[in-house]
């Protein structure tokens, strides 16, 4: 018995396949792009060592935040924060409502071919511009929170419409066929067949852009569109690091709280 096992020929392992030329090309391409990019921005980590004393000085100031800014409810920080929250809420609401209509117009399930092609390509142009650019253009018309609201609204329409249109593309065609057979108009078809199917997805996209908006409206103020961002630039230009640190602490807490809240809600929607 033992003899038989020993005499059995060794199984031949299949040869290891050579790495695919595409993989090799891809890796080489990534390396070349990285080298070119590094050269283009003068990549160097030397300043980390050279400028370390300057950074530690700033970090020491940051480590002693101006608590008064946080504890006093009438401080600049709280006014700016209320403004940021209002901007985010309004932009999310208006942007999401417009986006629902745009999404219905940009899916081949709910719109005629001529319309959905035009809407779809228009939306990809709107999305290709960062929110900051909208804010810069709108700030030229009027300053204050209004350009911030409009910039975030434009940005939200882009994101929510794209995600919702993808949900509409993926709806179950069964109810739609039933409605078509019963002679529903295009609007009745959308109202009774599509919206009920996409509502959970749509609601979770709205919460997701609300999260993004809180972060973005922090940033938008940097170009003068109101809110906490304006305060950050003010303290940065004055090199008032203790107050800047107070702002950072509050933003951090607010962003984490809203993320947790919205993640909890989104989990329930699924």
């Amino acid at each position, binding site marked *: 018995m033992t003899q038989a096992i020993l005499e059995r020929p060794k199984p031949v392992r299949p040869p290891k396949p050579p790495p695919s030329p*595409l993989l090799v090309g*891809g890796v080489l391409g990534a390396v070349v792009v*990285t080298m*070119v*990019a*590094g050269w*283009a*921005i*003068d*990549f*160097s980590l030397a*300043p*980390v060592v050279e*400028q*370390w004393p*300057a*950074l530690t000085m*700033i970090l020491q100031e*940051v480590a002693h935040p101006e608590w008064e800014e946080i504890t006093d409810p009438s401080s600049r920080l709280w006014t700016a924060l*209320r*403004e940021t*929250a*209002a901007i985010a*809420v*309004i932009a999310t*609401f*208006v942007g999401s409502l417009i986006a629902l209509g745009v999404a219905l117009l940009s899916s081949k399930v709910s719109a005629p071919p001529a319309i959905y092609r035009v809407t779809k390509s228009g939306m990809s*142009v709107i999305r*290709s*511009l*960062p929110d*900051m*650019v909208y804010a*810069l*253009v*709108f*700030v*030229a*018309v*009027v300053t*204050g*929170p*209004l350009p911030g*609201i*409009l910039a975030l609204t434009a940005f939200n329409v882009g994101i929510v419409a794209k995600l919702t249109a993808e949900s509409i593309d993926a709806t179950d065609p069964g109810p739609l066929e039933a409605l078509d057979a019963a002679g529903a108009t295009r609007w009745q078809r959308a109202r009774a067949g599509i919206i009920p199917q996409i509502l959970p997805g749509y609601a979770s996209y709205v919460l997701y852009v609300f999260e993004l908006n809180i*972060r973005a409206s*922090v*940033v938008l103020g*940097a*170009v003068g569109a109101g809110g906490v961002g304006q305060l*950050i*630039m003010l303290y*940065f230009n004055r090199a008032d*690091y203790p107050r800047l640190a107070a702002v*950072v602490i509050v*933003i*951090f807490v607010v*962003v*984490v709280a809203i*993320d947790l809240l919205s993640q909890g809600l989104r989990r329930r929607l699924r």
Partner: protein
Amino acid sequence: MSPGAAKRPEPPPKWPYTAVGVALVGIVLLAGWSLDDARWGRLPLFPGEVLQYASQMLDGVLTWPGAHPDGQSDPDLTYGDWWLQALRLMGESVALAWIGTCIGALFSFPLAFLAASTTAPWFLRLPVRTFFNAIRAVPEILLAVIVMLPLFGLNPMAGAMAIGIHSIGSLGKLTLENIESIDPRPVEAVTAAGATRWQRIRTAVIPQLLPETVAFWLYRFEVNIRASAILGVVSAGGIGALLNRVLRGREWEWGGIMLAVIIIVTILVDQLSAAVRHRILHGAEATAVWA
């Protein structure tokens, strides 16, 4: 009771939807009312003015590049110079977004293994996860202003580092979710064959994980290109700084050219990256059908 009178089920109540709708509208109105300096009266001005700016921008884009713009102090300046300058700066933006993404990928990949419940003990998991969440919560612009600008000065390295550090958080979170959701059977197989912890990760975890993770790196690169525009406003490199200056100076023709370059380059990079991601995730056959 006659069999013909089958009862229709009661339609579900509508009031919960109405209540949520009314509450939302109430919150929005409250928010609108709390903004005392919003100048809502200016709202009707926007369509007209924005259209006017847009038409001036379009003029700039459609003007022959050899022509000289009026109102500029330099008589040799042409529209073509503006195009070249915008392209060079946009190139810088793309380069710093790429380097930032590389930094994020490089650090997030090993860290994610220390944060996944299948590969690390809890005393490592907890601090690494907290670290990921913490850096995700700080917007890039704050990181740039407080840490990177003092270190690197007003140049693209500051932007690349700010984007890189921020990306560690989001890439790390996604990579660790990928690690936790892999098929456990290959891992069990190599464990049964006596693999060490490192061999297990090398032969059973990483091969499963790599396609989706690399695809997400590319997606993050697309996001980072947009983020780099914001960092330009605090002069952390890229096209943002000049765009900020030009649009604030209401040089709409010049701004239009810069926006055109941003749109074209962003869409091109998005398309390229989407094609590569599709090839990575779905293989050659699917690509052939798709193309």
